[in-house]
């Protein structure tokens, strides 16, 4: 009897083992597929945003900004900085502080006015 029971547990374990092996195998494949898609997507995005024609057309209007932060009591500040600019935000417990540090060129900061002139 004991012998028989042991065999049954064995069999269950073996089939569970097989099942898990198959699942891990499927997941490995799924992850590889994802990795490939992510790197393709990254490349596509880079080509898309670096295309000169797209660069020219890649803008928002000041009115878009105002509508996106549509509360009348909000001050909206726009920061345009060169690549690799570092932005540091302090711990809230140490006050509300933001520092910007660029190495490649000047940083532009301006306010988005809330009048209807459509001009920033």
């Amino acid at each position, binding site marked *: 009897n004991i012998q028989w029971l042991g065999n049954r547990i064995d069999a269950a*374990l073996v089939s569970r083992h097989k099942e*898990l092996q198959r699942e891990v195998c499927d997941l490995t494949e799924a992850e590889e597929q994802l990795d490939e*898609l992510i790197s393709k997507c990254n490349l596509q*995005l880079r080509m898309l945003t670096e295309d000169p024609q797209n660069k020219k057309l890649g*803008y928002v209007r000041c009115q878009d900004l105002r509508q996106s932060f549509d509360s009348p009591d*909000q001050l909206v500040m*726009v920061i345009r900085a060169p690549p690799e600019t570092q932005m540091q935000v302090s711990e809230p417990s140490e006050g509300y*502080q933001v520092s910007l*540090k660029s190495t490649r060129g000047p940083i532009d900061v301006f306010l988005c006015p809330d009048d209807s002139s*459509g001009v920033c």
Partner: protein
Amino acid sequence: IGLPTNSAQECQNLEVERQRRLERIKQKQSQLQELILQQIAFKNLVQRNRQSEQQANRPPPPNSIIHLPFIIVNTSKKTVIDCSISNDKFEYLFNFDSMFEIHDDIEVLKRMGMACGLEVGKCSQEDLKVARSLVPKALEPYVIEMAKGPISNVYITGGSSAN
């Protein structure tokens, strides 16, 4: 087939491995989704601007637009902001006396509806059609999945080897 104890141990190892991979896949899926959103939002923006420039027959005045990439910092108008700037404008230091928010340009594009509502899984049939037309074929299953709502579980797209 080894001894039962070995098998049990191995099953446990495999279980751990399975969980680890599931976690990684989940994380990579949201990374891919974000990239897809960015792609769709950027293409939509460019299309919109191209159309309105054609309609107006001229580009908008330079002082009425902001080119990507940019970052938004918003806070209450009551907030006092103390700002120091280096002479060459390479360094800035802001002190706020109240809370503020930081958003990237993609967040602005999402708020403008450029991501077709996919970012929150609220997507009309028309939106979905537009979104699908803006991505390569291999990414369409993901777009369809995103349109259904926020994804909580790992899903695996079947047989989408086409490019």
